[in-house]
Structures are given as structure tokens and as C-alpha cells.
């Protein structure tokens, strides 16, 4: 037992030395979390502002100008130009110079003044379906609000405002900042990167270089070897995950509402599964090229796409929702967001903790069977 421990430490020291010598890999392990944090904090968001709007005003009355200024003053639209004729609308949208065009018909002002129903046209470039949906929503809301003002002006004495109102209240993230949503996802991503990729590659490299034979010949058993190989990456991953949380709290005022102890526990649990998965891949692949492609396919892309990191799982088709159940990051994210944003304890996300435990145990068992068979 004691000698096993010493052997483990010896392997871990060798691995640490190798990590330290490879400056660039170390740099990447440090650079990537920082890069992602900045990019998510500052550069990327789904909040749509400054939509390029072109105008075709066939009326040129005070009322039509009022509608246009309602668009501009909303802050959602920037007026980029005029489209004098239908052909120019084509050109503007084709070239992407404008994302939306507002067409106001002739006699618009006169119709409104007379209380006759009228129609403005709103053309949107739909190539980015998500942006377009939001833009359409903005436009409908603006036109609706203007319309209600005119209606009130037209028939004085009608009740002020609509009969039924909604009072929205947003919990956990009242300003609806996408950063707070994305940062926990980032932790899963980084953990996946450092844990799975590094473990898989570091073992396959020994296979490729032929040093695996030497290790097998030496008195180190499979268990100390695997433990010694994975321990440094466990520590590195844990540190980089935690530093993301700390940096997000300092830079972006991310709240940390739950318990740090639970957070460390959940991250460690996830890392055990991830390291075991890296081990499993290393036992299947014979070259680093293959190992890396397998990692990309089986853990990298699913963590990005199928975990609820960016795209909501509830909106996916049913069969794909079933597939997301074998992606460990899915459970990890529920737990992380629960701890960090909601301040809830393990009791509230117990099913997710159980799923993570099952994942870790199953993958660990599979990996140890494969590694033992190869060792013998």
C-alpha cells in the first residue's frame, strides 16, 4: 500500500515535470480559461441592439416621422439609409447593408388621423433566424405601442391602458445577463479540455513513443501508474475551474450564492468521470491523431452543443433530448448553476448528482477493465 503510494507519487512527479517542460501546453491551459472568460464577459451575447434599419417613407408626414423616430429612439434600431424604390430594398438586404426595412405607405398620416385602419410593412433578413425573431418582436411591440397611442387619441374616454397586464419578475439573474448563464458552462468546458484531452494524449504519447513498454516492464503496477498519470491533471483542472469562478466574481460581479465546499465537491466528481473517460479513450486509440479526433467527437462537441451550455435542451427534438442524457456535462451544469446562481444545496439537484456518480463509476469500471487487459 505504502510502496504503491510512493510509486504513484513518482509517476506524478515525472508527469508534472513533463507538463512544466512543455511551456506551450502550460500556456494554453492558462490562456484558454482567461480567453473564454473575457470573450464571454465582454464580446459574446445574444442581446440584440443597433439593428441596421433602412427606411422607405412614401408618406413623409408628421405621423410617419413620428413612427420612424419611435424606432430610432427605442435603441434597438439604427437608421442606415433610405430605400427609394423596391429594387434598392433588394440590394440592401442582399448585400447585408440593412437587416430590416420599414416601408410606410402613402396616405399613412391621413389614414391614422381619420381613424382608418392601415398597414406598414416590415421586411427582415431572416438568415439568422434567432436575431430575426427578436427583431420582429421589437418591431411588433413598437408598432403596437404607437397604434395604441393613436387609438387613445382617436377615442378619448376609453379606458387608459389595456385591461390585463403582466408583471414579470425574474429570479436569480434579474438583469438577464447572458454572462451569468455562460460562465458555469465555461467551467464544464475547461474541465473537459484539461481532464479528457490531457489524460488521453499523455498516455497515448507513451504508447507512440514506445516508452509504454518500459513502464510496463518496470515494477510499477497499473493502478499506481494510472493514478500518478491522472493526479496532476486533476489538480490542474481543479485549479483552473476554481480560478474561473473567482475571476468571474471579481470581473463580472457573478454572485456565488451557494457553498464553496459543495462546489469543489461537484467539480471533483465531474473531473473523476472526465479523467476516467480520457483513460478509456487512451486505451482504445493507438495514435494521438486518433485519440484527439475521438475526444473531439465524444466529449468536446457534446459538451458544447448537447449540454445546455448554449442551446436549451427543452427546445431540442425528443430523440436528441434522450441523447443528452448520456452527456455528463448536462448534469454538471444543472448542479453548477444551482450552486452559483440559485444558491441551492445538493438536495435540490440530487438526481443530477446521482447521474454524475453513475457516470463516473461506469466509465471508471470500463476504463480499468480495458487498461488491465492491455497491461497484461
Amino acid at each position, binding site marked *: 500500500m505504502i510502496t504503491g503510494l510512493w510509486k504513484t507519487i513518482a509517476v506524478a512527479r515525472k508527469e508534472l515535470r513533463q507538463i512544466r517542460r512543455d511551456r*506551450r501546453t502550460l500556456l*494554453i491551459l492558462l*490562456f*484558454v480559461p482567461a*480567453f473564454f472568460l473575457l470573450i464571454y464577459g*465582454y*464580446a*459574446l451575447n*445574444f*442581446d440584440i*441592439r443597433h439593428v441596421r434599419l433602412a427606411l422607405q417613407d412614401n408618406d413623409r408626414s408628421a405621423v410617419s416621422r413620428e413612427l420612424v423616430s419611435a424606432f430610432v429612439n427605442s435603441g434597438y434600431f439604427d437608421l442606415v439609409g433610405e430605400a427609394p424604390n423596391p429594387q434598392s430594398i433588394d440590394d440592401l438586404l*442582399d448585400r447585408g447593408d440593412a*437587416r430590416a426595412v420599414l416601408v410606410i405607405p402613402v396616405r399613412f398620416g391621413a389614414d391614422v388621423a381619420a381613424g382608418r*385602419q*392601415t*398597414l406598414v*410593412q416590415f421586411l*427582415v433578413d431572416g438568415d439568422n*433566424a*434567432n436575431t*430575426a425573431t427578436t427583431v420582429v418582436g421589437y418591431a*411588433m411591440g413598437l*408598432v403596437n405601442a404607437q397604434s395604441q397611442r*393613436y387609438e387613445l387619441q*382617436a377615442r378619448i374616454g376609453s*379606458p387608459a391602458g*389595456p*385591461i*390585463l*397586464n*403582466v408583471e*414579470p*419578475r*425574474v*429570479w*436569480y439573474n*434579474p438583469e*438577464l445577463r447572458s454572462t451569468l448563464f455562460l460562465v458555469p458552462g465555461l467551467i464544464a468546458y475547461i474541465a473537459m479540455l484539461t481532464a479528457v*484531452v490531457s489524460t488521453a494524449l499523455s498516455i497515448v*504519447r507513451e504508447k*507512440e*513513443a514506445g516508452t509504454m513498454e518500459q513502464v510496463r516492464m518496470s515494477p510499477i503496477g497499473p493502478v499506481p501508474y494510472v493514478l500518478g498519470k491522472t493526479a496532476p491533471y486533476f489538480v490542474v483542472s481543479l485549479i483552473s475551474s476554481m480560478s474561473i469562478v473567482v475571476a468571474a466574481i471579481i470581473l463580472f460581479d457573478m454572485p456565488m450564492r451557494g457553498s464553496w465546499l459543495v462546489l469543489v465537491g461537484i467539480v471533483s466528481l465531474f473531473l473523476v468521470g472526465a479523467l476516467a473517460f480520457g483513460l478509456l479513450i487512451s486505451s482504445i*486509440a493507438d495514435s494521438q491523431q*486518433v485519440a484527439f*479526433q*475521438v475526444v*473531439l*467527437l465524444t466529449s468536446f*462537441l*457534446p459538451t458544447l*452543443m*448537447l449540454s*445546455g451550455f448554449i*442551446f*436549451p435542451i*427543452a*427546445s431540442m427534438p425528443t430523440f436528441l433530448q434522450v441523447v443528452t442524457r448520456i452527456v455528463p456535462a448536462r448534469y454538471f451544469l444543472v448542479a453548477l448553476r444551482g450552486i452559483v446562481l*440559485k444558491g441551492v444545496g445538493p438536495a*435540490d*439537484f440530487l438526481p443530477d448528482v446521482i447521474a454524475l456518480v453513475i457516470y463516473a463509476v461506469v466509465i471508471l469500471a470500463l476504463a480499468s477493465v480495458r487498461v488491465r487487459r492491455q497491461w497484461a
Partner: protein
Amino acid sequence: MGLTRLAHIVRKEFLELRQDPRLFGIVIIAPIIQLTMLGYAATTDVRNVPLVVVDQDVSSESRELVSRFDASPSFEVIDGLSSTDDVDRYLNTGKAWMALDIPQGYGEQIRAGRPTTVQVVADGTDANSTNVALGYASTLVASYARELASPSGQPQAPLVSAEVRVWFNPQLESKDFMIPGILALLLLVVTTNLSSMSIVREKELGTLEQLNVTPIARWELIVGKMLPYAFIGIIDVLLVVFVALLWFEVPLRGSFLLLFVMSVVYLMTTLGLGLFVSTISATQQQAMMTASFFFLIPMVFLSGFVFPIENMPAAIQPVTYLIPLRYFLVILRGIFLKGVGLEVLWPDALALFGWGVAILVLATLRSSKRLA
């Protein structure tokens, strides 16, 4: 003479690729699996938001409001609660994203024609989806309020209404926007990663020294290394385009020939980038890490693949001009959805081509320094 030497290198690379049948399988099958997964997953549409209802009024009016929510495809009423306190439990565990709280006396107020307010509580952790879902909720309530307010009980048309016409993607389907992007993403991931390891592997194995003493010129080595991967890339392009057209029914409104030619130009940039990474790396692990994490991931996020470039801060936007993926995405979406040709896309095509030539020259120069 140069051509026969080139052919030898290409043959050697193909032989090496064939030696690893697993790699070959991955390169061909993986894109199809990924496209199918991502084509379905990469949607930012918001549907089936799980909703709980706290109906403190229990009148026919309140039931009518709840049934409006239930009938909408955006919401799914999963439970009815008797007390507002129970909402905590549902939002904390994430079982529900939203709660609709109808106060006592709601039905009476509506019958009397007095304005009244219902409360919607939302879980803000997924800021984007919540924003969209809140919009749906208030639109739904507003149109219901219109119906209630009009004397005939019929929805009354507003004085001014907007006629919305969506171009290029009238159904506003995410997949039509995402799938051309996924084609670009897959090519980048597969070809750049593979080629980034090609020269470095020879370095690691020591065979680069042997190549060095043969009369092979630098550019012959680079081009010879590139061609087999270009071949794989072209197969991937064809596979992915066919799956996109036949399975996902993404419209291809522009010219297939132009799409193909531009894909080849794009492959030049991705392979050139991979080879460049190969020349600046000492080990395969380094090459992979450098390619993926210094180049691929930043490119994917800053190219406009998911996050629109217009939403980025002004300081970041110029950086996106350095990314070849950005130009290819404009070209792909232009050809697929807008059906435009080179007359509109030439600036992007030119930028992409220039990028490809530059990175290949850079890779050749680097490799000659290394080999000399």
C-alpha cells in the same frame, strides 16, 4: 520532374492514411454524425418552456387564461399549485422555468372590466431563453387583453398593424442558418487538426531528417502533404452538402458549382493553417492544442457562427476580419439562403483567397527555415 516528386509525396501520405483505418473511418463518418447532431441541437428557438400555474382565483376566467398558455407551443403547463410558496421548489430544482401567478379576485375584476395584473415569475439563469419566453408571455397576454377589451369579444384589429415579411428564411428556422455554418465548422475542425499533425509527426519520428536529404523542395513537401487532406476535405464537403440538402432540406438557392469552388478555396485556408501550426510545433500534442485552442475555438466564437458579429463591442469587431471562417460563413449563407453569386460575394471571396495564399506562403517559409 517536380511533378513526379510531388506525386510520390502524395502517394506516401495516402499510404500512411490507409495504415490507420480507424482514422479514415473517423474522417468520413464523423462529419455525418456531427451534422445530424448539431443540425438538431444548434437551435436557439425557445419552445416547450415548462410552466407552473398558481391559480388563486379558480374561476372560469382564470382557467381561460391558463388554457391560453397551455395551447401555445411556447409553453407547457406542467403543474398547478395552490400556493405561491411552492414556486420556490419548482424553480430551485429547475423543474419549471416559469410560474404564472393569478391573484385572488382576478375573475371578478375582469368581469367588472377593471384593469388587473397577473404575475409571471421566471428563472433568469438562461438569460437568453428567458428573455424570449417573457416576450412570448407578454404578447400572449396582450392579445388576450385585446379580446377581453373589445365589446364583441372578437379580437379587434389595431389601428396600425405591421405586416412582417421575412426574407431568405420565411419560417425563421434556425437550422437553415446553422447548417451552412456547421459545414464550415466541420471542415475547419477535421482538416486543420489532421494537417496540423502531418509535419510534426515526421519531426517526432525523426523521418523529417530523411526527407531533408532527399531532393524534395519545400513547396513540394507542403503541397504534397496538403493534397491528400484536401481530398478528404472535398469528400466531406460533398457528404455534408448532400445530407444538408436531402435530410435537413436546407434550400440551396445559389450555384452548386460556386459553393464547391469556394469550399476548395476555404480548404486551402484551413489546410494552410494546419500546416503552419505544424511548422511551429515540436510535438503532436502541442500541434493539436495550438490548433484547437489558439486558433479553432477563438475562430468559431468570433466568426459569427452562433453569436452575431454585430452584437460584439466595437473593439472586438475589427478582430473578426482576421478570421477566414467569417468570410466563408458570409459566402455559404449567401449561396444557400440568399441565392446570390460572386457579384455580391466577391469581396469575401477575395479576402478568403488572399488569406489562403498568405498562410500557405507563410507555412512554406517556416518549413524551409526548419529544414535548412
